[in-house]
């Protein structure tokens, strides 16, 4: 990607501008998800009709998808490591693994939503459902953009050839990916585990 030309740009903090920008965006996203989680907590037990959380959650399946997403973060670390050490095969392989992890997670989410809708919880059934879909849907959208982003980098890698090692860009994408993972851990705890308190 073109920004390479400026990769060694002097900055005051020594942190690359793009990386710094991502950190700032993450700060903003904390408030975005904070608001969504708060809204969910307020509305969790306020549904007047339709199923409640305890009726439909399937903790086993969600644990599995959480595990999958966490593993994709491990792959992300390995991909970045390979990129920084200029090992093209490993870089491509682990990036592909991250993408795969993301896609599997999205698959889980698709089936979860599908299952819930069959169980009678649509987007508009009650405020619990609306808040749930808004929160997890927003997270899913973030995963989707991450998948799109990393796929674009992988494709670019094949176009640009074996000498292209976008360490900074991958690190920025990695920051994003890890953040989205961390948010999921929070959602998993607050949405899926608190039900059993």
């Amino acid at each position, binding site marked *: *990607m*073109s*920004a390479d*030309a*400026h990769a060694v740009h002097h*900055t*005051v*903090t020594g*942190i690359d*501008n793009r990386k*710094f*920008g991502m950190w*700032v*965006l993450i*700060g*903003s*996203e904390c*408030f*975005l998800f904070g*608001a*969504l989680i708060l*809204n969910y907590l*307020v*509305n969790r037990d*306020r*549904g*007047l*009709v339709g199923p409640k959380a305890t009726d439909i959650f399937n903790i086993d399946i969600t644990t599995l998808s959480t595990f999958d997403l966490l593993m994709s973060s491990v792959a992300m670390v390995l991909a970045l490591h390979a990129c920084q050490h200029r090992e093209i095969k490993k870089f491509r392989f682990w990036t592909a693994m991250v993408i795969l992890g993301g896609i599997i997670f999205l698959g889980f989410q698709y089936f979860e939503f599908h299952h819930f809708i069959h169980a009678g919880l649509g*987007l*508009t059934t*009650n*405020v*619990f459902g*609306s*808040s749930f879909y*808004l929160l997890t849907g927003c997270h899913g959208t973030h995963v989707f953009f991450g998948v799109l982003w990393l796929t*674009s980098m992988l494709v670019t890698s094949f176009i640009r050839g074996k000498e292209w090692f976008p360490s900074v860009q991958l690190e920025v994408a990695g920051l994003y990916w890890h953040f989205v993972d961390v948010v999921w851990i929070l959602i998993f705890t607050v949405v899926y585990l608190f039900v059993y308190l």
Partner: protein
Amino acid sequence: MAKCLPNTGVISWITTVDHKRIGIMYAVSAFFFLLCGGIEALLMRTQLAIPNNTLVTAGTFNSLVTMHGTTMIFLFVMPLSAAFFNFLTPLMIGAPDVAFPRMNALSYWIFLFGGLLLNFSFVVRLAPDGGWFNYANLTGKAFSPSHAIDFWVFGVQILGLASLIAAINFLVTILNMRCKGMTLLKMPIFIWTTLVTQVLLILALPVITVALVMMTFDRTFGTGFFDPAGGGQVIMWQHFFWIFGHPEVYILILPAMGIVSEILPTFSRKPLFGYTVMVYSSCAIGFLGFAVWAHHMFTTGLGPWAQALFSAATMLIAVPTGVKIFNWISTLWGGQIRFTTAMLFAMSFIAMFTFGGLSGVMHSSPPIDSQHQDTYFVVAHFHYVLYGGAVMALFGGIFYWFPKVFGYYLHEGMGKAQFWLYMLGFNLTFFPMHFLGMQGMPRRVFTYAGDQGWNLWNLVATSGSYVTALGGVMFVVNIVYTMATKKKKAPADCWDGRTLEWSLASPPPEYNFAVDPEVKNLDDWWHQKYTHDGRRLTPRYQPDVDPATKHLPHPSFWPIILAAGLEIVAIGFFFDEVGHYISVAGLVVTLLATYGWIFEEA
């Protein structure tokens, strides 16, 4: 493609990524929207001049209130502040440009399209009418079935995105691109208030984003977040709105405070009194700004604990604010004051803002607030801080930096005439509103009966608004006259200034600094000109070099295309049957533009 784009003409402005040009475009757009918001205000005041007036209908009045408030806040004060951030930030910190030049262009175009979308509602006769805080459940499908509210929801959503992108950009620029020697506590005070403003934007905007998405879902997909019938809660909108909305008012006032803190020292020939304390109090204001939102909701029945805490927090904010006011006054104390137009505006800011602050701290007490809520007293209060405060300071900034931006001084005589028309008109309009409020005149009413004792003050207020409008005309004449005659050319350091932008030619060259600056002191430019005992030194002005020797970011079409893509996504929501095709088409444009952007040579 980027390399062969021209340097002058319309295309060059559409594709520019130069922070100085983007700043100018922000300012021009903001003044266009000021005209819109001003006309709306005059219509309202004309309607209210006499009792039982029938100039506009109740429905139209609702739209006028809503669009006036929304326009003044999101389309005038915020973008005009952004114009100052854009033009000044790199110059004041000694940087070649902002951290992400193309993103800077992107945020401008998103803002412009958002503003146009909002105002397009007038063309299709569906101007939003839910007030500038758009309270649920009045704005739900049940009570507002037409697309009017959607214009507001999507307009504000788009404007928020523009501000968020800009905020990330400026935050990174300020923290990462300062010149050699400029530690945090050597930054000009305007840069500090800019920094705090960006932090507020970054943390407050996502909250309104979420609230607007929820409202979109309620209105478009039939969820019931704000609908008690299905277990939702109306009050949630108020909480979300004000968690954003209160930081928002500091987002409006902090840049103005920064501008005033730059103007006062220059025209008093004294350093800013208590610079460090000014920095800390700006941070304190920013921090406390997040802890007081519920003072907008005292009458909703929050309960004694919440009321007590929010009341105390609100009073606490008066402390750092008071510190600032004393610092400004101490800056003037003993100075060699030059009463330029910019200085007059800056000094009036101190007085008017203090006034608005005093009426503000009055409603931090819940029992008193329950008398003020939704009366003209509140209208008087927030116009004193927003207009007497923010807008006066912004005009001061215009007079102060205009010669730097365009190379010519604005006409001082006309400037002073404008200033006095503003002062007179403004106080005539808004001072009597305190009385009206105390006498119980509610806000947002389109007319009133003649036997309430409100007639006189309403007439006075309306006449005042026309005086203000005259001041506005004076400003336009001044600009046109200055640019047409180009009489008084401004030298580089036209006011004997203190910060780095005055070491550059007026207007500054495209590449900003020919030689990377290095600073040793706060107000470094001043210390290059004078010794401590006041002897004159010969400062080193920035030399002129061949622009070809400087690496500049290339102009680009992608920002405007990407912004257009996002706008199309929003437009899709206004069409019932083909709507989703339009939105998807917009997404495709956005995506293609993103890829075009990434693979373009920056």
